[in-house]
């Protein structure tokens, strides 16, 4: 359908100003935080109610128009990249907190509510929403559900999927489904789990109910410096294998430390090869006991300088360096490319060494800032998009890192999603049988393939062309079983 007709039909559903079809006004919607990919949508709509979303979906379904949902557009894998012939359905205006129940400790939210706004609204009741992506001031709860986002505290408190109670989902043909609710489980198959992390391919999230947690009475942050990345990696395992589950356990390497220091002066030791930030929370007595124990374990694992933040201000400063690490790295190179593989923790030292070697091979520097406790790596590959060939080199380098993650039993994406970015690496991680089931599930929700087409799950043909498939259509008896 051409732009004019489509916009006119959509204006029968939404006020004229909530339908954007002007070239200039469409520009800001051409991509998400994976800036290498840009595509103008045919039309943008900004619904304000569930009913409007339903009617937009019914129209697009009937006319065979593709639809891409978008929250705040902070995604890092191109998930919200528009379709050239499609509608970009922006949920950002649906941003009311519908209900906050301090006694039942739940919040019912429209999908455009910003992640941080939930905790801010809950704070007067001594409660908060646990998953805290570094983008939390901007990203939306609907986007968090679609990506199953994590944060620095998911080691102890889980990802989005662990903190959700219910979702209202508009299907491709405009029907409203309630998945979960405010009880702890629901009858039948667990569709709530299935749609979490489904990257806008199965339906549009129009309402979210989350559980809230009581704010811990005591929080302590330790900073430990190491003279090798390998030693810091081993220290992470040492702490967790002794029965201590920190609220967060983050690592930064030298390049990241220097960038953060130059940027905001968090007080990190510049001479360290790596630092660990370890946050412990709970009742004061429990935390005091854990601080002593963790200090001992870190010392035994070879930590040099160990510092415990003495007051909330110092604690905030230590975290500020970590939270500002991406922009800090952004200052030392024209562009960076953020990877997101996860590996079993015990392979941290090996994989970080491997990344260092690849960095030399590709001639591109890499800074590491990541969720060490979960084994979720975020290598930031530094490059300059204005130099011919560098973006391609950065992408090739990234692909090799992800293959390394899969080879040690990990995954190509811990929290940023596959989107358009990692679609080829899906062929490395999954077999034809597995991909076929994914396509089957997609068809069960969206038979015509109108929701976010071309994302998250590659076609078998694409994988076959790449030659990256493990097996073809079940020819080998049990190749999967050997993958441990």
């Amino acid at each position: 359908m051409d732009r004019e007709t489509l916009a006119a039909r959509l204006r029968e559903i939404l006020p004229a100003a909530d339908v954007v079809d002007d070239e200039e006004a469409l520009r800001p919607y051409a991509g998400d935080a994976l800036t290498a990919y840009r595509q103008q949508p045919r039309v943008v709509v900004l619904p304000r109610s569930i009913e409007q979303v339903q009617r937009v979906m019914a129209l697009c379904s009937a006319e065979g128009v593709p639809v891409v949902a978008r929250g705040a557009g902070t995604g890092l894998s191109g998930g919200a990249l528009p379709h050239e012939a499609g509608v970009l359905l922006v949920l950002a205006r649906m941003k009311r907190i519908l209900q906050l129940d301090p006694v039942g400790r739940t919040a019912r939210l429209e999908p455009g509510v910003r992640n941080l706004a939930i905790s801010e609204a809950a704070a007067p009741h001594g409660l908060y929403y646990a998953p805290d992506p570094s983008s939390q001031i901007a990203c939306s709860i609907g986007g968090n559900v679609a990506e199953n986002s994590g944060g620095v505290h998911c080691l102890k408190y889980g990802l989005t999927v662990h903190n959700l109670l219910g979702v209202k989902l508009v299907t491709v043909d405009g029907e409203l489904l309630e998945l979960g609710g405010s009880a702890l489980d629901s009858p039948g198959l667990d569709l709530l789990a299935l749609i979490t992390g489904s990257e806008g391919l199965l339906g549009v999230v129009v309402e979210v109910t989350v559980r809230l947690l009581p704010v811990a009475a005591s929080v302590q942050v330790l900073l430990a410096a190491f003279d090798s990345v390998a030693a810091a990696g081993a220290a992470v395992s040492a702490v967790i294998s002794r029965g201590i589950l920190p609220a967060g356990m983050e690592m930064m390497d030298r390049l990241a430390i220097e960038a953060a220091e130059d940027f905001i002066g968090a007080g990190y030791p510049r001479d360290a090869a790596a630092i660990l930030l370890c946050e412990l929370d709970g009742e004061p007595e429990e935390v005091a006991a854990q601080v002593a124990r963790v200090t001992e374990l870190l010392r035994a694992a070879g930590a040099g300088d160990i510092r415990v933040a003495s007051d909330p201000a110092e604690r905030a400063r230590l975290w500020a360096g970590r939270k500002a690490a991406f922009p800090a790295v952004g200052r030392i190179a024209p562009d960076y490319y953020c990877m997101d593989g996860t590996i079993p923790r015990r392979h941290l030292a090996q994989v970080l060494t491997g990344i260092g070697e690849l960095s030399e091979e590709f001639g591109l520097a890499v800074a590491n800032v990541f969720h060490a406790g979960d084994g979720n790596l975020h290598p930031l590959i530094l490059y300059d998009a204005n130099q011919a060939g560098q973006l391609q080199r950065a992408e090739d380098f990234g692909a090799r890192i992800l293959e390394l993650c899969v080879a040690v039993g990990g995954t190509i994406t811990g929290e940023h999603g596959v989107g358009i970015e990692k679609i080829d690496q899906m062929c490395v991680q999954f077999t034809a049988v597995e991909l076929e089931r994914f396509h089957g599930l997609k068809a069960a929700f969206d038979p015509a393939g109108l929701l976010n087409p071309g994302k998250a799950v590659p076609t078998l043909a694409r994988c076959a062309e790449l030659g990256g498939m493990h097996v073809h259509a079940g020819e080998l008896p049990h190749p999967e079983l050997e993958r441990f």
Partner: protein
Amino acid sequence: MTLKDADRSAALREAVTAAVGAQRPLAIHGGGTRRGLMAVTGDGFDVLDVGGHRGIVAFEPSELVVTARAGTLLSELEAVVAAAGQCLPFDPPRFGPASTLGGAVASGLAGPARPWQGAVRDAVLGITLLDGRGGIGRFGGQVMKNVAGYDVARLNVGAMGSLGVLLDVSLRLLPSPMTSVTRVLELGLGQAFGRMARLGRRPLPITAMAWETGTLRVRLAGSEAGVAAAVASVGGEPCPDGEDYWVGLRDRQLPNFEGDGPLWRLSVPATAPQPDLSANWLLDWGGAQRWCWTDDAPERVFQAASELGGHAMRLVPGVQRAPLPPAQLRLQQRIKAVFDPSGLFNPGVLYPGQY
């Protein structure tokens, strides 16, 4: 390790392929301890015995992750992880020594710690699934953070084998608490609700709260220092046989469960008021899971639970699940068909005649 170790995946796949060829339904059988949860027990069906497919595939204590074959006995799995000072966060009911990992995951039931330590699906990181097209797929993985592909692993938790045969499961583990104590408080139901809500708003190391006939029990677990401090906030009296109580509650072995009247499970928001039913009650999960003995008509119980934002399931006599809205039922049927197009696995186990 003295565990019996046997990889029967090839034989299981052959059996499934044969059943698909002959279009004969299969009753997937682990230890047979969870038949009480099946709406149709499949007595006339061919039995696919997964019990022989057992053993620990990988256990790395430093990762807090274990991967085991589905036929592994829960008791064996527990012993292996306990030896490393770890435990299954969801503490599944045992219902007898034959309980297997596959049955525990397929039925998706969690013990009294559920609201604090998570559901079965929260601990499931990955599965290998043998489906009704004869395909074997590995979904999820062995790491906590993993968003590649749809979450087929968690979709299979609680699916009662309706989508396929679990071959192995990777689980996230927790360090076992250093100490655990139970406090008892004599409180009527109204007071108990108030107390549970107040306690829930503080970050106390609670791992269970249950009320029955005038008694609220609260379990606290963690370090000595943390638990001692929390005991002071909770109050009440010590309960020397506390752990036996929680095991009895988990496995439905408490005296209350011995009666033969109709038994219902209501899953509702923890702070929801009591539904208007003429019933005896036992509240688990801090009020979010309510056991109810009532002669009221099923429609009435379903209705009451749904008015409170939850759902009900009858266990005795005979399993009956809350009906699904038509749009959801159709979607669930389509999902079933993705994995089991001929409808051969445990047909009717969730919704007889529907899928």
